[in-house]
């Protein structure tokens, strides 16, 4: 009798077995996973059941979602939202030497060029023991990611004397830094944003012979371009370097401290003593249509959706925008060929691109690939330009443009009303 006691009898559940055999049954998953757990084979090895990987697709075929693209759609395991990866912190305690980088900070932010140079500075610092990379930043800064860009120490110099065009005040600050910290290297971007000018001034004042247009730098050897980029000059690495774009790789795997570094005599009358022989009278309003389209900062571009061309030109005048056009507008004869943006026209680099009535052919989208911000005005909410835009307005262009003209004319400090803009716009400098 004891053989037939209730706890020894293995009871089969034919329904559960049937469900387990039927992959399409709605309860299949729950039935199969009920008996799951850690399964060990006869030799004690952990067994994985390959049949339990994946899910059954809508037509009954098993799918394995390796890219994990629609994990949230499956009821199973949920992946948490992409976690903020905390990069390892690179610390330099009591640095024995410094490598100073003077970034351009166009618009108050580190440019890609600046980040490459910071990466190169770390490559140079790695060849010495315990060196810190210092960034010198003048004026107002909007940059929030000095730590991720590879700045170990930061010298941030505020003050009206550094605003606008002030190479002499900046030079005297750099001379002070050189005297106080005696950096191993000074790294500057060889750019038209002021980096090359400041570097040349410092080199002339210190009596150092700089390496200009350097593109391959190690602790001992530097390769520079010479003779309008037709020769390579290989030389010993000097103290002051002006570096071309893509000279190094930007930092992306470490975090840095970006500790503030003091500068003796800062805030005293040191900088007031520095004679300023160049008197800045501010930026001059320029005719936006005289600026080459490729380097214009703000482009108002017209496409097939424009019917009132007088209004479009008036809007460009009111906003102070350079005019651009899509291929259709040019082919139809409303705009000159030189204004065409895109594959067979100009590739633009505007900071802000306002596309009116342009649906966004791929040839046009290529042309605006380097624009920072795109605004679209279009009647078709599904067009490619609306998808690309940071701000898309689904409306008829004529109404919105007339409202924009009104707003621009009401705005007190519109470019039209002021011929001489004294207020410093750091983005343009």
């Amino acid at each position: 009798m004891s053989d037939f006691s209730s706890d020894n009898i293995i009871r089969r559940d034919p329904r559960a077995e049937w469900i387990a055999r039927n992959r399409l049954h709605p309860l299949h998953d729950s039935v199969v996973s009920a008996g799951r757990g850690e399964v060990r084979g006869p030799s004690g090895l952990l067994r994985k059941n390959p049949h339990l990987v994946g899910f059954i697709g809508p037509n009954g075929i098993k799918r394995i979602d390796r890219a994990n693209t629609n994990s949230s759609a499956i009821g199973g395991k949920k992946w948490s939202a992409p976690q903020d990866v905390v990069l390892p912190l690179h610390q330099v305690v009591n640095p024995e030497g410094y490598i100073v980088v003077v970034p351009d900070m166009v618009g108050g932010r580190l440019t890609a060029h600046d980040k490459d140079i910071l990466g190169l500075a770390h490559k140079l610092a790695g060849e010495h023991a315990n060196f810190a990379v210092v960034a010198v930043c003048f004026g107002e800064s909007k940059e929030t990611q000095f730590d991720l860009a590879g700045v170990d120490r930061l010298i941030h110099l505020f003050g009206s004397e550094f605003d606008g065009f002030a190479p002499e005040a900046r030079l005297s600050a750099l001379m002070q830094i050189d005297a106080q910290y005696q950096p191993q290297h000074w790294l500057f971007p060889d750019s038209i944003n002021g980096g090359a000018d400041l570097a040349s001034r410092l080199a002339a004042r210190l009596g150092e012979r700089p390496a200009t247009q350097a593109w391959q730098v190690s602790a001992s050897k530097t390769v520079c371009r010479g003779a309008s980029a037709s020769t390579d000059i290989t030389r010993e690495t000097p103290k002051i370097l002006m570096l071309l774009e893509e000279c190094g790789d930007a930092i992306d795997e470490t975090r840095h401290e970006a500790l503030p570094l003091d500068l003796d005599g800062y805030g005293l009358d040191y900088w007031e003593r520095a004679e300023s022989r160049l008197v800045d009278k501010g930026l001059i309003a320029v005719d936006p249509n005289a600026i080459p389209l490729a380097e214009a900062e703000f482009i108002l571009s017209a496409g097939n959706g424009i019917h009132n061309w007088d209004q479009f030109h008036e809007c460009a005048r009111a906003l102070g925008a350079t005019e651009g056009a899509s291929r259709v507008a040019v082919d139809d004869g409303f705009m000159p060929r030189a204004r065409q943006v895109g594959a067979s026209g100009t590739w633009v680099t505007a900071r802000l691109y306002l596309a009116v009535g342009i649906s966004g052919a791929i040839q046009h989208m290529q042309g605006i690939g380097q624009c920072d911000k795109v605004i679209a005005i279009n009647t078709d909410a599904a067009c490619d330009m609306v998808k690309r835009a940071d701000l898309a307005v689904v409306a008829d262009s004529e109404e919105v443009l007339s409202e924009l003209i009104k707003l621009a004319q009401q705005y007190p400090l519109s470019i039209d009303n002021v011929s001489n803009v004294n207020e410093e716009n750091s983005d343009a400098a």
Partner: protein
Amino acid sequence: MPPSVNMVALVSVGRHPQSGRSRRAEQDGRAVEMGMNLSCDIDGQLSVVHVGDSKEPVLRQYAGMGLDALTVLEQDSGLDVLPGVVTYLKETKANLVLTGVRAERGESSGMLPYLLAEQLGWPLVPRVAEILSIKEGEAQVLLALPRGQRRSITVALPFIATVDNAAKGARQTAYGPGLRAQLNVVESEDNTDDIATSWDISPAKPRPKRMKVVKAKSAADRFKAATAKPAGGGGRVMKNETAEEKAQAIFDLLKQEKIVR
């Protein structure tokens, strides 16, 4: 009575970017053009100076712009040009020096105007687009900034200006007048450039293009990076608002980006 503005334009031998042949340097030509226009407008006198070989045919291209004479400080190639220029400028009591930003041959470091400014103790005005006026020893200068912007500054004479590509283009040169122009050859002292002799100069190697490296830890990440569509669609779409609200949103973004000041 000597002219109030004694301008000196420093010119060099250029290099055609495609053929590599000698030519009138782009920026130096603009510097001469600026000097010639200034000497018409104000009480000034322009002298054009070259350091190097006086038999160089390119000098005739500068002279063909309408110069009566050209000064050459005779010197072998590969020597330091700086001391000769400093002595010349001091002797001739120049008070405005115009040069290009960068030479098209040699090291083309663009350091010469800065070293001149340092040795003479003059201010340097970088990347000039136009000199608007020179009145009572003070010049009003327009600087060329990136993105076609201009900045106005004032500076007192004497000063050194480097001329940007945004300045007015150099006028056409005429062959005959170029040949007839007088060359004043001045012997200059030889100063070897000691540092540059140790350099190794070779034809430029093409720079490697930066590869787009995907730093993915797993195969799934690499697959995702290879097949990912360009990110987009993060923008704000305004559909049902009134035209005023839509225009206001656009205008706010313009203000936020400091496009409209």
